[in-house]
């Protein structure tokens, strides 16, 4: 089976790769491009560990084909922090002990980024429903929700 040539943009950088037509974008990211901050928890779109932003929209990289990245703009967890340091969402996850094992954390941070880009002042219910596509088995979500609230406040002050 011949591979497909793809040109795309990941975290602001032009990237090209060859992938199998049936290969998921998650598989391309992790096994070929070695951008492994994006995690696989299920590969069926149920856990959100592979959350990435596709043209600013939150998607599961496991539900997207590698070929579908052609011409698009993607953001992964590696693209959240800036030259100035951690993004406030990352900083608040740390300060609020919102991670235990840390495997779901990149997905949560990307999903939170998508939420706060869209709705800078979400209430608790909105946060909980927005993040309902991201599974965490360690924290019971309490500290994650508080971290998101704190990040929203921080970003509002910065704005």
């Amino acid at each position, binding site marked *: 089976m011949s591979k497909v040539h793809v040109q795309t943009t990941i975290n602001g950088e032009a990237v090209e790769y060859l992938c199998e037509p049936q290969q998921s974008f998650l598989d391309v990211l992790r096994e070929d491009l070695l951008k492994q901050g*994006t995690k696989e928890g299920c590969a069926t779109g149920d*856990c959100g560990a592979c959350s990435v932003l596709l043209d600013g929209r939150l998607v599961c990289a496991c539900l997207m084909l590698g070929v579908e990245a052609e011409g698009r703009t993607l953001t992964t967890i590696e693209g959240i922090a800036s030259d100035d340091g951690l993004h406030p969402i990352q900083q608040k996850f*740390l300060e609020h002990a919102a991670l235990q094992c840390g495997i779901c954390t990149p997905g949560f941070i990307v999903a939170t980024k998508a939420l706060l880009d869209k709705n800078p002042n979400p209430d608790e219910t909105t946060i909980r429903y927005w993040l309902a596509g991201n599974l965490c*088995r360690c924290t019971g979500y309490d500290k994650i929700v508080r971290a998101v609230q704190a990040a929203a406040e921080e970003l509002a002050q910065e704005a």
Partner: protein
Amino acid sequence: MAEAVDYKYIGTSPVRPDGVDKVTGRAQFAADQNMPNTLYGKILRSPHAHANIKSVDVSKALAMEGVYAAVSGADFPGGARGKVGGEGGGDIGDVARNIMARDKALYHGHAVAAVAATSLTIADAALAMIDVEYETLAPVLDVVAAMAADSPLLDATNFTKNLPETPDKPSNIASVTVLTRGNVDEGFEQADVTVEGEYHIPMAHQGYIEPHACTATVNEEGKATVWCSTQGHFEFRSMTSKILDWKVGDLKFIPAEIGGGFGGKTTVYLEPVAVLLSKLAGRPVKMMMSREEVFRATGPTSGSVCRVKVGAKKDGTITAAKAWLAYEAGAFAGAPIGPGAMAIFAPYVLENFHVEAHDVLVNKPKVAAYRAPGAPQSMHAMEIALDDIAREIGMDPLDLRLKNAASEGTRAPYGPKFPAIGFKECLEAAKAHPNYTAPVPEGAGRGVAAGFWFNIGMQSSAEVRINEDGTVIIMEGNPDIGGSRASMCLMAAETLGVDYERVKAYIGDTESTGFCNVTGGSRTTFATGMAVVQACEDIIAQCKARAAATWGVDEDQVEWEDGQAIPAPGVNADVTPMSLADVMASAHKTGGPLLGRASLNASGAGASFSVNFVDLMVDKETGKVDVLAFTAIQDAGTAIHPAYVEGQMQGGAAQGLGWALNEEYIYDADGVMENAGFLDYRVPVASDLPMIDCQIIEVPNPRHPYGVRGVGETPIVAPLAAAANAVRAATGVRINDLPLSPPNILAAIDSD
């Protein structure tokens, strides 16, 4: 004894040392390991729940282009039966047969062969070319039916252990545990009220978000290096050595960051297979389970049937209790019946009780440890019985528990008397808690339950090194599954008297640090923490000796205070205090670099008790349960890092609620799990839960230098019965079985 004292670092919640790497995607988990020239390994799994394997032929797969190795059960030389494999693993012969079937497939998804190929696509294609000839057998799926004399047998050589006389016929009952005291018949005669019931809990999975993964590489010398997701790399090395019949010294295990375990990563699945494939292929082999494989073929916890009868006087005094427990072992012996039997009545003063517990083979995956293994199942039954007694005698459920609560000096059901414990303190805190004194929301129900876990100690090693700038490096061997590096750094900072920011903790591989038992049993902060504290004390002793030599005074004339060696009061030495950096600056003159170490087999882990209460709203038309409020109160001994103690309590509460409300292994008649994915095996999501309020009780454990008990496991125990009791309160209907899922609740309401 460790008194409640003011600490400088302990009891604070700083950012964890490994945090930045985990919020930026830098942290390397097992599936993130990459080596040039790596092959992908995949496993062929049995499509039958119970079958004889007549033959396995991998030759066609091996002949395919891009396939470099293929193995089946016959290729695994080790795994003699009857030897203990390590914490959590059970009999090593069983572990060996669990990771690769020999003559029998014992559950749907049981590994029967494996391949290594240049791509995942080719590996999948190769699995399809392996010929396996099965002779299917009737699956044994129901734990009670499995115990019947006429049940089909999983293992014709299994004769029930621990019976007074060795049975003359094999059965599916692997072993029986009995625990008894006093005279239950007389006890029940003294009772004014007696309640009894039979309670069913389904098999449930730990549900860690990271699937099992590993990479193994075997070089031309026959030396293997393995990166893996493990709760205990030393024990993984030991098991792999026994299963492959390799020397321990030829195996190096490097623990990656671990994406959750909860007990499920205390035993091997992939590692021996990857080592063997790499040896045969001469290239590195990477193996990653799919989520479906995790559900079907790794160790969940036992489904169970518990029958409990409890008698009490009108004043609430429990006079007798009796329990009959049957736990699913899955395909091989090893259900946690010992802890289940010892835990069920542990929170209470009881003169008359009898527990009989059964470890039962069924055609389901071999169970593994899951957070307080065995306790949630049995204590669910007891805590429901107490709720029913409280209702019958018109007593507050917390008062009923207080009336019978164990305290220091109470003889535990398993024999010894409790040292200082904090159960009564938890109950009193619950009674006074604003969430408990607040009225129950209109239409909702409030449920109360208690939880308990023993906690364990076991073996740990730690080294502490001092850099020339006085910064501190801790090296220990327990994978950090929930922030334990932060706890180690806090205890070291406190002991040495240096800033938390100046301490770093590392998890060494099997060749860079001393042996540590698994991260499990809530032992890491307790036992490995104790080793870290002792290694720091070793450093302090060395610094005092170096300072004494520098100053020309006796060692007993030097004290350690606030991170410095100082002359003892009354010693008239005109000297400058020496910090760690000062000692290191002159270390070349006083004996070389500072290296502290400690190794121990810790005893004295303190039991941790909890009280939970939950407000639930039940939609009587749909059967859906909404969690309105949850309060967790637990004795942590001393909370080293309170935010991560709360994290354990909140995470355990969520897992317990998930098990109570939705999670279950659903099997069809052929023994095929029908919901092997996160869409249908529904763990709680953020919108299912409220904030989880925590109150940490601190009754210090006298056997730990800072009073640590261990907190990780107790939190999962109480939510099961608390939820069941809340549903009873909300609906007036007692539902004995879990999960309290919409169809089950509707069926119970309709039949009432």
